[in-house]
Structures are given as C-alpha cells and as structure tokens.
C-alpha cells in the first residue's frame, strides 16, 4: 500500500519528494482552469502535451518506486495506492497485461472536477489520468515509455456513467519529452521577516503533518474543494511546453499571452484553495487563536503555503497596499531548470497569481468574515476596481538565488481576461 507519510517533508526546501518526484497540493479549480486555459488555444495540439506530461512523471516516479517489488499484482497495488493517495481517483489495474487493456472507473478527479466546475464537456478531459496510466503500464512491466499508447474513450465529464481508458502497445501517441536534469536547490537565505504573533514555523510543521483524508472514491474533499497532491513537474511540463508552443506561434507575444493565462490560473488557485482554507474549521482551530491583524492572516497563510510542497516563502513585508515575499525553490523554477535550463524570463507564474489572490482575500475580500467563495465573488474581487496584482522581481529559474514576488494594490485593467465563472466547451 502506498502512503505519502513514508516520505518526509523537506522543510528547508518546502518540498515533498516521493519516488524522485516533487508533489504539490492544488485543487480541482486550479487543475481544471489550467487545463482549460491550455486547451482553449485551439491552434495548439495540446492533448499530446497534457498526456505526455503525466506519462513522463508517472513513469519516472514508478520506475523509482516499483523495482523493489518483483510481483506484478503487488506492483499494481502500489500504483493504485499512489493514484488514490494523490486524490486522482480510483483505478483497478487487475485486468491489465503487458499488452495493455482497459481501465474502467467511476471516479476520476479531472472528470468529476471538470463537470463540477464547468458543466458537461463535449470531449473527454482526464488527460492526467490517461498519461498516468500510460506511465504505469510501462513501469509495471518494465517497458520503454515510447512503446506505450493510451487514450480515454469515455468520460464522466461528458455525462457518461464512467471513464474508460484504453492502453496498448505501439509508438507513443503522446509527446515524449527530453530527459530532465537533476533538480538544483538553493539554500534558504537568512531574510528578516517582520515580527508577528503568528508562529510561522509551527504552522508549517502542523499543516505538513495533517493527514489528507482520501475518501472511498479516491478523492480528497477538503476545505470545500477536491484537493490533489500531484506531481509538480506535471504542472511545470504542461505549462512550459505550452509556453514554448505559444512562443513558436507568436514569439515574445506568445510568452506574454501564456504568462497572463498562468497568472490568472494562479489567481484561481489563491482564491479557491486559500479561500477554502481560510474559511475552514481547520484554520480557525489551528491558526485562529494567533490572528489579531490582517498582517497576521497574511503571515499565517504563507506559513500554511510552506507546507504544500510549492517552495519556501519568506515574507519581507505585508500591508494593505503591498506584499513582498522571497520564495526559495519555488516549484516552477526548480522544474523549469530541470527541463529547459536557465530561463530568460520569469516563470513563477502560479505563485505570482496565487499570492496576489491571497492578498485580495485578506485585504479586499474580508476573508475573516467568511464570505461565500462563489465565481461571482471571484470576478468582483479580481476584475472590478482595485486589486492586488503580482509581478516577479527576481526568479530562481533565471539564475537568481531566490524568486521574489511583489503584489501591489492597483486599478485593474478593464476587459482583457475572461471571467472565471464563464464556461466554454472543452
């Protein structure tokens, strides 16, 4: 049986590594919004990227985890357990052979989460699961990943009763990416953080120890969301490969377009994930007694962030108009450098958006009053009038010793991004 508790949290780097893969918490809002943002660019064939990104990390992770287990059924049990512990859903691999097979399930995070968030989809959406299964088939039987095919033929997001994935042999029908380099981590600096009544380190440790409750469907309903603990390099690969495709199409403009989409996805992450956290009984119980000012809320939120596997944040300043944080080993930078070397532009998109989102919730959204976290509230908070907007002033992916993010209260530009609550067909 697989259990993330067997893998110690690295507090110095803000990372949880299992089978060589860094794992990070996100929720179905972010997962589905990011995927839809990538798919919305119809001039890019994104499906092979989305499947290939998942196949890459699953294959690498399972190739690390499985060799200690020779027995095929025991290997399958580990894979099923890992998938479930990720909050990705339920899979039964018992019918799988070296030649492939069919995997049917009624519970898949992306299929269910997509329908919850966007309504019925016109096409299957569980690309992560498709790629994961491809990687799993190859790793279980010791096959080259390039000799495996996977596709989803039925999806609950379309209104079907179940998901069906078909696995087989043959040349990979998804993108095969170049081998990643080993991750390079930076030492945490001795940055002075403002005094606060909040015990930041204790919060981080307490949250990291808090068990994630996986339900009978292999999902993690927590804070009013479906939470996942997926591979950081899955998010990195699909984002940066998309960015590269956009660059091929539109040059520098492509990077800026992709950056806007990813930062918006970060807003969604900050609003829903941290909104859910900061209105939860768990927050009130563990952190609530320490909170007296809005700055305390900011310090507590970033201390909580430091336990989710995204890197380590040091808050240099937080006020009603400005936030400055340094992030050591933010997962986007670490992943980018593994995949593509030193970046010529900042790539810490998600955290740039998410941290602005946290500030919006605390200083503009009065999150301490437990407002309803509706799509309408999101649009009101981020798209109308003044709002915090984040920008990178240093980025570890560019060779800097840390990533620095500033969020400032500014007038939001009218128009531009689509509204978060607006649905589009997949």
């Amino acid at each position, binding site marked *: 049986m697989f259990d993330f508790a067997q893998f110690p949290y690295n507090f110095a780097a803000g990372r949880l590594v299992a089978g060589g893969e860094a794992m990070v918490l996100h929720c179905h*809002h972010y997962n589905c919004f990011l995927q839809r943002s990538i798919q919305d660019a119809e001039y890019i064939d994104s499906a092979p990227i989305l499947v290939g990104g998942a196949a890459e990390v699953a294959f690498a992770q399972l190739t690390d985890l499985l060799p200690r287990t020779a027995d095929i059924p025991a290997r399958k049990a580990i894979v099923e357990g890992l998938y479930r512990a990720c909050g990705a859903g339920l899979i039964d691999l018992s019918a799988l052979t070296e030649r492939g097979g069919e995997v049917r399930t009624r519970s898949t995070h992306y299929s269910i989460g997509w329908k*919850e*968030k966007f309504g019925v989809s016109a096409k299957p959406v569980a690309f992560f699961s498709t790629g994961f299964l491809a990687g799993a088939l190859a790793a279980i039987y010791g096959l080259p990943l390039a000799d495996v095919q996977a596709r989803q033929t039925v999806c609950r997001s379309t209104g079907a009763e179940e998901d069906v994935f078909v696995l087989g042999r043959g040349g990979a029908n998804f993108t095969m990416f170049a081998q990643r380099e080993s991750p390079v981590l930076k030492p945490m600096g001795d940055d002075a953080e403002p005094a606060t009544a909040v*015990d930041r380190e*204790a*919060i981080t*440790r*307490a949250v990291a*120890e*808090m*068990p994630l*409750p996986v*339900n*009978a*469907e292999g999902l993690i*309903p927590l804070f*009013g*969301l*479906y939470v996942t603990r997926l591979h950081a390099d899955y998010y990195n690969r699909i984002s940066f490969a998309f960015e590269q495709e956009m660059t091929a199409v539109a040059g520098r403009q492509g990077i800026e377009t992709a950056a806007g989409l990813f930062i918006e996805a970060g807003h969604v992450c900050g609003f*829903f994930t941290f909104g859910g956290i900061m209105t*939860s*009984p*768990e927050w*009130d*119980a*563990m*952190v609530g*007694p*320490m909170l007296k000012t809005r700055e305390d809320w900011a310090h507590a939120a970033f201390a909580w962030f430091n336990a989710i596997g995204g890197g380590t944040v040091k808050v240099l300043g937080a006020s009603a108009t400005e936030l400055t944080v340094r992030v050591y080993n933010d997962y986007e930078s670490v992943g980018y450098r593994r995949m593509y070397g030193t970046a010529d532009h900042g790539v810490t998109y998600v955290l740039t958006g998410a941290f602005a989102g946290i500030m919006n919730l605390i200083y503009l959204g009065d999150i301490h009053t*437990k407002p*309803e*976290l*509706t799509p309408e509230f999101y649009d009101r908070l981020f798209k109308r009038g003044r709002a915090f907007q984040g920008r990178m002033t240093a980025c570890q992916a560019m060779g800097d010793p840390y990533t620095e993010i500033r969020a400032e209260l500014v007038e939001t530009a009218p128009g531009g991004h689509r509204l978060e609550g607006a649905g589009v067909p997949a």
Partner: protein
Amino acid sequence: MIKAAAKVYDCLHRERYRYTLDSPVDDGLFAHYADADAFQVAVYDARHLLPQARITFRIEPRDGSFLINGALGLDYVTVTYLRGGRMEAARATQEAILARLR
C-alpha cells in the same frame, strides 16, 4: 442547541451548512458516532506544535452521505450533505443531534 444554520456555497454541488451552536463543541459529540462500523471519526491534534490549537475532527458515515468538520472548543461545525434521495433525512438526523448538544 443550534443558534443559527447558514447555508454555505459549496463548489462541489453538495449542500453545506454552517451550524452555530449555543456552546462550544466538546467530545460528547463523538458519542453519537461511536459505532465504528457505521462512522469514521478522524481527529488531528497539533498542540505539540501549536499549544493554542484546538483538536480538529471529521466525521463521515461509511456511506459517505454527509461529512462533519469541526474542532473541539469552536462554537460551530460545518456539515456537508451529498445531494440525493436521502439528503433531507440525513440533514434532519444531524440537526437533531446538534440540537441535543449542551
């Protein structure tokens, strides 16, 4: 006793209520869910790290029809109900339990 019941927006399309109680929740609540074959009660105690923290809990029946989140000492709990034919019955049962708490 339930002082107030507020329906909370739930982005998983379930029905979620925040019940404010007359007095803080104590472990007497657990007695109503002591049948381990029917209910799963999970607690998390972070006081070794955060001395002021309260013990959080989750209570879920094996059929998954509802989920109670709360913490000992807080004056509210949230209960999330799965939509379906038995939702009203599940809600009535949980509200009756909360109403009897002292």
